[in-house]
């Protein structure tokens, strides 16, 4: 049973436009959410995170939105660049179990983003 779902396996966007990647979760204990980016033959790298006490977090071109009532989060990339082409993973953790839970992540299936020049 997939507790974190990314229902779009792939997304294609023109350079300069906005990329929106979506993620849904079912476990109401999740209170910390992250996005990771992965290039081929490399490990995932951290992109941005958000705690459940917030509904938005920005870092440069990247913004994560959290809708707790809908159990939905999204990653916006504006403007999109060809170098953003990668697999994006959404992940969640239940930190109320204690500080040691931050790294015990539940991942989504990933979305392949392709940004065309």
């Amino acid at each position, binding site marked *: 049973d997939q507790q974190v779902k*990314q229902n779009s396996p792939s997304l294609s966007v023109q350079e300069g436009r906005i990329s929106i990647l979506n993620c849904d979760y079912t476990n109401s204990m999740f209170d910390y959410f992250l996005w990771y980016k992965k290039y081929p033959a490399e490990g995932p790298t951290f992109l941005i995170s958000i705690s459940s006490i917030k509904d938005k977090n920005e870092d440069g071109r990247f913004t994560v939105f959290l809708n707790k009532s809908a159990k939905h989060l999204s990653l916006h990339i504006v403007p999109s660049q060809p170098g953003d082409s990668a697999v994006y*993973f959404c992940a969640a953790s239940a930190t109320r179990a204690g500080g040691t839970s931050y790294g015990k992540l539940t991942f989504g299936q990933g979305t392949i983003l392709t940004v065309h020049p």
Partner: protein
Amino acid sequence: IAGITQAPTSQILAAGRRMTLRCTQDMRHNAMYWYRQDLGLGLRLIHYSNTAGTTGKGEVPDGYSVSRANTDDFPLTLASAVPSQTSVYFCASSDSWTSSPLHFGNGTRLTVT
């Protein structure tokens, strides 16, 4: 460059054989993790260790064992490999007492035939 080193980068293994995937970090992180990545399933946690000397089971621990004799090393052992363990394995570390994100190694691609 500080980070996580995994070895080997890839391996083809006959079913029934024993295999240890190595992981070393030089960031002095107290927590370490092993994840496997499979198409359509994302990454799933196999085992973790909050500090040296302690380990715990993740979501998919069966068929795998780990040890944490010191802060830097966290090997993953497949005692008797099966084809369903064909996957890409990622080791990760973090400072588990804060919300610092996981740092991942570049993975080991394992094929069990």
